[in-house]
């Protein structure tokens, strides 16, 4: 007895044998392993491909034999007989497919791609668009915004909130909240985090549960109106990250902004405010905020200071439209009665359903992608249908014999459909695996600012949907070939083998033309997206991002009570950062362009007489010397900030070109003066320089007038504000992120309790601004490429099959003196027809369909003639090439052999 250890393959096979029933195994296991060993060493299974073939055969054998091994032979009822019939169909189908591995692999892969892309994108649709928001009755939750000229959708003011509470019957209730930041300030683990101040009714308006504890009471909110809050609510993320998910945290005090505060509640893990769906950094700390709920007696002229968010819940029976009407009426009344909201500025309150607001920008992109993958799936179906039609021609003989043996038409159709179902099931299984992988890739494409993409998963709903798609797919691609086989004329088919099969090749041509048309539509769409992406990429944002490291630091009032403390700290930090080898320059600014929204500040501009009710204002920044140089923002006239522009020097400012265009057109702005606020209380600021415009609130957002004040002069210029929160900007010689640690260390050594946040490069910030167009263009591009490939495989297959069917005819033609080129052009002609018909239908369909992605385009016409033209020409060339290559084989036909061929 040889007692060699079993090879790995044999151990695996022994494992597979466990699938057989126990009685069968006990009887035959040893013998089967014996046969396995003998077969393993068969010469035809040598080498890598032999190995693959061996396992293909083994698994196939298992699939065919399993139902047999489980079957009993006695007492078969009618029901069992029909199950047996199905099993038999199944077994036969598996066996037939295994015997044509080339065909099977091709069909399965095609289906896997089609079903897999559909499943993956449906996963996105399901998680992003269909899943309700984490609020009770989330359809009734609305967001309310303000807008006026230059501010298409912006914050609201406290006065507006109070007026809406009392004059808009469509709302059940409204809650106000605003973004801020705060420090977890325990010395051992300081952390700067996003924070929110919210009215105590926030969670009631949203109808969101608390994970632990509670939200704020009215008393707590009222107290916070005059004193620093003693209570906070924290996010689930902070609870897990900082407190190790300690179940006893609620009720305990933690240090925030240098003061102990009691955690009264923890939010659920999936909770997000409506404005936080597009961000990776959800707020970790909530503070109570008190707002007097009574109506405003004397309404401010421009609505007041706009800086808060409002979320509301509709009263049952009310709609977004009725709420909007309430607010419009209110604005009209305030204009008439109090002279508020000057009409020239087009004040308009906006109401959105929360879901529309959150998904507004990404919904059309996802729907376009869904359309794309449905097209890919259809192309895949057409391809497999074609493969099956081709094969059914080869199988004429077999089918005829089965019909002769008494198989009815339905029986044959059922058999063919079973084969389709087996193909679709395997393809669907692979496709779902593909979807799991794809979803991870989608998430990788999200830099954190695409709403809900991080929630995407392949769950039960997606699996169910995929199963449905799989069955539908099988019916779609399987029924045409099956019905055609079933109707085959018995005598004709027994009599001939092969033949031109005109009926079927007509169908094949139609299918190929259809594939072409679908692919053309997709490529047009992708072309428009690529062009949009180019246009967006070529937008000059007005600053450069290379080798710039940035991080945010905020100084708590408890340890840095005065503006001078803050200025001293920032100056010292910049000086120390510049001592680090590799750092060329260290500077600081209030907020970075494309990173967060910038708002405006009312101004008085010397010598400028505003029109009646015209708001004089500018977006406000403060910056340290070196900011313009580091960011590559050009100084077009005058000078940038110097270190001498300090707290003791005369107040200076720098403005952008848009500012000059508005307030001092045709004048030299250098030496002109403006001041912050319109009440005449602040000091005049002299303009010393004009810098280039910078895109701030988004790539395609309007560029507004902006002014910059030296960091050291901010307190004096703004009338007492402190520059406590800054973004340090460090210009490095090489890779900026490599200097993260030494730059952080500067802050840490100066004050270990300070938290550092938002460590990233300016390049990353610029890149994040392109996230959604990139997401769309990458996915649509990839799917279109897949679609083209499938369509080309389709036409290639049909033409080369046509050539092989007509070998005899070609031989005769050549024997009679036809030139090879004539023969090739004969074969190509049919391809040209298919390509041109497909192209024609595709272009017409694309002209009609691309308008659905119009909202995704930028600076590109949805029917751009250049793109349509070049895509059509390019497509025709590639498709004709796919036709020509197999057709050329016709020229290589040897007449003698061709005539002999069957």
């Amino acid at each position, binding site marked *: 007895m040889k007692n060699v250890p079993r090879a790995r393959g044999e151990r695996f096979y022994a494992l597979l044998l466990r699938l057989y029933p126990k009685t069968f195994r006990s009887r*035959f296991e040893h013998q089967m392993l014996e*046969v396995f060993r003998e*077969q393993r060493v068969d010469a035809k299974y040598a080498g890598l491909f032999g190995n693959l073939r061996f396992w293909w055969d083994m698994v196939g*054998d*298992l699939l065919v034999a399993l139902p047999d091994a489980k079957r009993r032979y006695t007492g078969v009822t009618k029901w069992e007989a029909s199950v047996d019939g199905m099993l038999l169909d199944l077994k036969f189908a598996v066996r037939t497919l295994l015997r044509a591995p080339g065909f099977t692999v091709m069909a399965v892969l095609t289906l896997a791609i089609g079903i897999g892309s559909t499943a993956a994108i449906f996963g996105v649709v399901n998680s992003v668009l269909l899943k309700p928001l984490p609020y009770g009755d989330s359809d009734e939750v609305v967001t309310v915004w303000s807008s006026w000229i230059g501010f298409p959708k912006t914050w609201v003011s406290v006065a507006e909130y109070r007026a809406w509470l009392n004059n808009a019957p469509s709302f059940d209730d409204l809650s106000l909240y605003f973004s801020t930041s705060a420090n977890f300030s325990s010395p051992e683990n300081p952390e700067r985090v996003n924070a929110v101040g919210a009215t105590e009714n926030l969670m009631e308006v949203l109808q969101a549960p608390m994970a632990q504890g509670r939200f704020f009471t009215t008393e707590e909110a009222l107290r916070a109106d005059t004193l620093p809050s003693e209570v906070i609510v924290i996010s689930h993320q902070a609870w897990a990250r900082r407190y190790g998910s300690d179940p006893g945290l609620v009720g305990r005090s933690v240090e925030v902004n240098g003061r102990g505060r009691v955690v009264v509640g923890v939010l659920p893990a999936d909770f997000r405010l409506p404005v936080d769906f597009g961000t990776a950094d959800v707020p970790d700390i909530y503070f109570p905020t008190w707002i007097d709920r009574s109506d405003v007696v004397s309404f401010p002229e421009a609505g007041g200071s706009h800086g808060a968010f409002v979320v509301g819940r509709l009263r049952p029976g009310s709609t977004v439209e009725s709420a909007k009407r309430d607010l419009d009426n209110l604005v009209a009344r305030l204009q008439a009665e109090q002279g508020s909201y000057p009409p020239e500025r087009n004040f308009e309150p906006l109401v959105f359903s929360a879901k529309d607001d959150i998904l507004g920008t990404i919904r059309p992109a996802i729907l376009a992608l869904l359309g794309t993958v449905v097209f890919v799936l259809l192309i895949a179906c057409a391809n497999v249908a074609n493969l099956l039609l081709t094969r059914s021609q080869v199988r004429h003989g077999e089918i005829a014999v089965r019909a002769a043996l008494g198989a009815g038409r339905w029986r044959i159709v059922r058999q063919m459909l079973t084969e389709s179902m087996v193909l679709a099931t395997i393809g669907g299984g692979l496709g779902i695996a593909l979807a799991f992988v794809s979803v991870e890739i989608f998430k990788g494409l999200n830099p954190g600012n695409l709403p809900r993409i991080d929630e995407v998963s392949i769950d039960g709903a997606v699996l169910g949907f995929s199963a449905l798609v799989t069955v539908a797919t099988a019916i779609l691609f399987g029924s045409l070939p099956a019905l055609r086989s079933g109707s085959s004329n018995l005598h004709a088919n027994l009599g001939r083998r092969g033949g031109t099969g005109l009926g079927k090749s007509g169908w094949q041509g139609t299918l190929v033309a259809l594939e072409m048309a679908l692919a053309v539509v997709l490529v047009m769409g992708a072309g428009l997206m690529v062009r949009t992406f180019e246009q967006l990429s070529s937008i000059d944002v007005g600053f450069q991002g290379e080798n710039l490291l940035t991080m945010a630091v905020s100084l708590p009032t408890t340890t840095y009570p005065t503006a001078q403390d803050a200025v001293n700290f920032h100056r010292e930090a910049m000086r120390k950062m510049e001592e680090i080898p590799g750092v060329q320059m260290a500077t600081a600014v209030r907020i970075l362009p494309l990173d967060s929204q910038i708002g405006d500040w009312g101004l008085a501009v010397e010598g400028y007489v505003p029109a009646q009710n015209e708001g004089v204002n500018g977006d406000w920044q403060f910056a340290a010397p070196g900011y313009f140089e580091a960011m590559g923002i050009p100084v077009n006239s005058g000078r940038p900030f110097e270190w001498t522009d300090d707290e003791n020097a005369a107040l200076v400012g720098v403005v952008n070109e848009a500012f000059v265009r508005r307030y001092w057109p045709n004048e030299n702005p250098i030496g002109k003066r403006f001041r912050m606020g319109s009440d005449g209380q602040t000091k005049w600021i002299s303009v010393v320089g004009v810098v280039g415009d910078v895109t701030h609130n988004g790539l395609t957002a309007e560029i507004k007038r902006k002014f910059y004040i030296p960091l050291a002069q901010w307190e004096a210029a703004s009338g007492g504000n402190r520059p406590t929160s800054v973004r340090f900007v460090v210009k490095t010689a090489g890779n900026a992120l490599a200097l993260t640690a030494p730059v952080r260390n500067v802050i840490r050594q100066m004050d270990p309790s300070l938290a550092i946040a938002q460590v990233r490069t300016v390049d990353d910030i610029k890149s994040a601004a392109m996230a959604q167009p990139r997401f769309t263009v990458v996915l649509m591009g990839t799917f279109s490429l897949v679609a083209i490939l499938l369509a080309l495989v389709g036409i290639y297959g049909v033409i080369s099959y046509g050539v092989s069917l007509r070998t005899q005819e070609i031989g005769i033609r050549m024997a009679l003196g036809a030139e090879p080129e004539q023969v090739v052009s004969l074969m190509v002609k049919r391809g040209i027809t298919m390509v041109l018909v497909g192209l024609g239908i595709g272009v017409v369909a694309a002209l009609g369909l691309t308008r659905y992605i119009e909202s995704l385009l930028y600076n590109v016409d949805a029917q751009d003639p250049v793109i349509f033209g070049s895509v059509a020409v390019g497509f025709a060339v590639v498709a004709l090439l796919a036709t020509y290559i197999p057709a050329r084989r016709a020229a290589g036909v040897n007449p003698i052999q061709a005539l002999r061929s069957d």
Partner: protein
Amino acid sequence: MKDVTSLLPLSRSLVHLLLALHEGERHGYAVKKRVEEMSGGIVRMGPGTLYTTIQRAEDLGLIEESDERPPPGEDQSQRRYYELTPFGTQVLAAEVERLGAFVDHARTALSGVRGK
């Protein structure tokens, strides 16, 4: 006595198994090789198909395990040999008869078509 014709038609693998054993008793792998040889590679038998067919044939009483063993020392103790039963021989003959009738019929049909 079991009814011979009630088992017809036999599955393709069963016919081939019986035919292979009709030539003399064989062990599993030898049956597989012979079947593939006889069918010109059309009927392929892996271990699973082979032994489910053998099981079926044994259950129906068409074949049985042979008492014969190869000479000891050839180190093939795991091998079992199978042989046709008299009933198996009858069933095989009946199936071949049935197939022959079908082939004749089909030939006539085909030549008729060709003549047109």
